[in-house]
Each structure stands twice: as C-alpha cells, then as structure tokens.
C-alpha cells in the first residue's frame, strides 16, 4: 500500500535534494554545451558580428559579399573530371548552373572601385538530384590560415588602434602572400575577366574509391584588360553590374573550370598557402553564363552558396574553413531571411 511506503521527513528532504541536483546538473550541462559558460568560444554569431561594418550590418543582405548580381547558365562537363570524382557533374554533359558575381564587402552599396576581392557563388545541379555549391574569390590565397586568425584579422581591420594590423601581420605572417596579391595584382573592369578560385582544398573520390586532394578555379575566356582602381571609380560606383548586364546581352560568357590535383604530401589544411605551380591540372568543363538575373527578386536571393553542399564524389578535406564557412553562412542566411522586409522585393522590377 502507498501508505506503508511513506518515507520519514528527513528521507524525503534527502530525495528532493538528489532530484534538484540531478536536474540542475542536467540543465547546466545543456547550457555548457550551448556555450553559455564559454564567452571565449568563437561562435557563428561572433564571426557575423565581426564582419559587420562600423555602421552595422545591412539588414536583409548577405553579411559578406553583400553586393552582387545573379546569373543563370550551364556547366558543360567534358568528362575528364570523371577520372578524379564519381560525381555526376563530371560526366560529359550539360548541367544547369545558377550563380552570383559579387564583391567581398558587407555593404551592398559599396562603390566597385573600393572592393579588392571579387567572388562568384555557383550552384550546379545534376539529374541525380545532387548539387554542387561553391563560393570562390579572385584572390589566389586566403589572407588567414585558420578561421580564428580570420576573426582576429576582421577585428584588427576594424580596430581604431593604428598598430592593430601591424600586430596581426606580425603574429600571422601568412597574410603577406595575400597582401602582395592585393597590392600588385592588376584590377579588371569586368567580372567576365576575373579568375575565381576555390582556395579551400576538397577531396574528390573516384569510381574506384581512390581519393584526390584538389582545388579548383574558373579561368575566364575573356582577355583581362588591366584598369586602375581610379579609372574604375570614374566609370561609376556600380559599373561592374552595368557592364556585365551589357556584356551578357551581347553574348554568353565562358569560364574554363580547372581542377588542380595536389601531390602526395601537399598540405590541404591551409588556404593561405598555394600549392606549387607545377601541380597537375585537369580541365573538367566550361561554365557558360547565359543570362543575368535580377538581384533583389532573382533566384540567387534566397540561395546560400554553402561550400559544403557537395555531391557524392566530393567531400571536405582537413581544411577547417568549409565547416566554418558553412556555419557562418547559415547564420547569415537565417538573419537575412528574417529581415526580408528591410530588403524589399521590387515586384515591379524587370529583369535587366
């Protein structure tokens, strides 16, 4: 009978204490896992905060590479990539592509001539229902070796301390390669003349299960015509956008996709270091940009070019950036889709 099992008051108190401790301990473990006791943990929120300009993030827009313009086209595979990866995207054929030319800035209104880094987000879809998403930039290497170092770089760049950048460069000498490129590489007056690089290393898995560490690049078919940033500035703050609209109207644009294969022993974990020039390259196909799409109302708007959305046959390597980018891009996506009223769709806008 329940009565016969009643406990003395002291024992009840002891049991209640046990229950309290167990429940409080569980809640504390949960809070610890969520990072509430770890203020130093580098979270996606902190990274997104560090990307924001001093005036605050542009609501409704991507938290970086905010300025851009969308395109559609096809990726025509020549079949050569099949020796490296079993992904259907490398089987000879044509696959629909969606992409976005962009500038590496958190400000969607930044004048073109003020932004050194240009990028291309790309999604190629194959009939097997798989997707390959990638987001590339025109720099040959990344400025930082680790996501933590990149966060420090963002903080240093935003710092009011005039020595902050010098201190960062001292602690992270790898930035010199990127710095040299930023200083000396010629600018172009068109997205069509830019080369875009994956920077991060990925692993291609072929039909036999063999693995190949690779990076990839898109090489423009258009001849690059160097232009100084001053000249670019004279052409107008949104010149690149207008130029690419006109250019694609005159005819489709092409880029050759080249896969660079690492030698055994090449480091895959550090995108701030290029592999030696003599590494084997394989031309796997051609990206053709056929049509420019509206940015605010077009098909790119609600796409996250998350570089870890990969088909079977491509996977991440020990490079820590794709995972970091995935988590940060997701944060940016969650924020901007929740702010869509701050970046209204212009229902009346016509396709350029």
């Amino acid at each position, binding site marked *: 009978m329940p009565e016969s099992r009643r406990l003395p008051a002291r024992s009840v108190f002891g049991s209640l204490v046990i229950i309290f401790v167990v429940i409080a301990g569980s809640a504390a473990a949960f809070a610890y*896992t969520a*990072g509430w006791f770890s203020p130093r943990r580098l979270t996606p929120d902190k990274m997104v905060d560090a990307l924001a300009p001093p005036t605050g993030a542009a609501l409704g827009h991507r938290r970086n590479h905010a300025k851009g313009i969308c395109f559609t086209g096809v990726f025509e595979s020549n079949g050569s990539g099949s020796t490296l990866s079993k992904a259907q995207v490398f089987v000879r054929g044509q696959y629909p592509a969606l992409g976005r030319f962009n500038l590496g800035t958190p400000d969607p209104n930044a004048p073109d001539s003020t932004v050194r880094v240009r990028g291309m987000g790309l999604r190629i879809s194959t009939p097997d229902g798989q997707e390959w998403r990638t987001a590339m930039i025109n720099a040959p290497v990344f400025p930082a070796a680790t996501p933590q170092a990149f966060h420090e770089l963002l903080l240093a760049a935003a710092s009011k301390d005039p020595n902050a950048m010098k201190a960062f460069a001292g602690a992270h000498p790898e930035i010199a390669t990127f710095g040299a490129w930023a200083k000396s590489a010629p600018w172009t007056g068109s997205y069509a003349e830019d080369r875009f690089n994956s920077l991060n290393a990925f692993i291609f898995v072929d039909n036999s299960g063999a693995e190949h560490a690779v990076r990839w690049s898109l090489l423009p078919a258009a001849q690059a015509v160097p232009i100084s940033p001053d000249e670019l500035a004279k052409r107008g703050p949104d010149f690149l956008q207008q130029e690419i609209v006109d250019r694609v109207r005159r005819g489709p644009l092409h880029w050759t996709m080249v896969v660079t294969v690492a030698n055994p022993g090449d480091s895959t974990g550090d995108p701030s270091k290029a592999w030696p020039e003599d590494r084997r390259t394989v031309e796997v196909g051609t990206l053709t940009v056929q049509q420019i799409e509206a940015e605010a109302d077009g098909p790119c708007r*609600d796409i996250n070019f998350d570089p870890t959305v990969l088909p079977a046959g491509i996977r991440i390597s020990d490079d820590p950036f794709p995972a970091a980018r995935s*988590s940060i891009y997701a944060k940016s996506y969650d924020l901007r*889709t929740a702010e869509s009223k701050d970046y209204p769709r212009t229902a009346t806008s016509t396709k350029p």
Partner: protein
Amino acid sequence: MIGIGQRFTPLQRLLHWLMVFCIVAMLFIGVGMVSTITPKYLPLVSIHKSLGIAILVLALIRLVVRLRYGAPPLPADLPEPMRLAAHLSHYALYILMIGMPLLGWSMLSAAGYPVVLYGGVRLPAILPQSDRLHTLLWNAHFYLAFLFFALILMHFAAALFHALVRRDGVFETMAPVPSRDELTPAE
C-alpha cells in the same frame, strides 16, 4: 498494490529508453552545433539530421503502439494537479517528438538546402523555398527545442519524485528493468 502487473509493454519500454538516448543526444547536439565554427560543426549537423529522422520514425511507431496498448493507470491517490500535469506533459512530449523533426525538415526545405542523411540518403523537400516560411520554422524549431528540454527535465524530475519520494509504482511502469519488489512475490 497499485500498478502491479500493469507496466508499459516491453516494446513501449524499449522505445521509451531508446528515445531518451536519441532525444537527449539530439538536443545537446543541436545547441552545440549552432554555437561552433570548428570542423565538428559538419558531422554534428549530419548526425542531427539523421537522428532527427530516426526520432520521427520511432515516435510514429511509438504513437501507434501507445494507441494500441495504452498506458497503465496512474495511482488513485495521485493529486489532481499532478495527474493533469502528467497527462498534458505526455501530449506535449508526443507533439514535440513528432513535430520537431518535421519542423527541422520543413525549415531546410524552405531554405532550399538539400536534406542529406547519413550514408548519402537524400530526402525530398516537403515545402517550397520561402524566406518567410523559413524564418517562421526556424524560430519554432529553435525556441521549441528549449521548451522540449525543459519538459524533459520536468518529466525526469517527476519520474524521480515518483521513484524516490512517492514510491507509488509509477516509475516502475516504465523502468528499464523490473525492480526488486516486482521480482519478489506479491505481498
């Protein structure tokens, strides 16, 4: 004595304890993965998706089993507020066990992400892409996760209260192994 011989069926107990493990792991992985940018992020997200679908399947099986076999009655002397809390919390737990995986799946669909499970299994999108739906579902998935964990803690506290303080046989109805009392002949 109350509840003797009236326990949840072995299948119900198996499902309960298996799901305790899955759901607790799921909630910890969830809050952990959204707070890190380390390489752990990707395997955690992958496990979160696969485990979520596993929980959905287990919860649907469990619901059918519950409807078929029911539950042992609560002790007659259980105060009415506790009785009400027990019933309501069970409804809430079932709704969350089934609803949370569906919210997660819909949220990914509304964002246009492919839903890829462990082993490369691909699930179809169950909603069209929409920033508004994504935001709604994301908020629901996020805030309900904390409610879910709070409910589990309450459920756990209540189970311990039944086991340690009231000693009324309620805990034994779902205990993973029969208690010593039940192994001895009935009083």
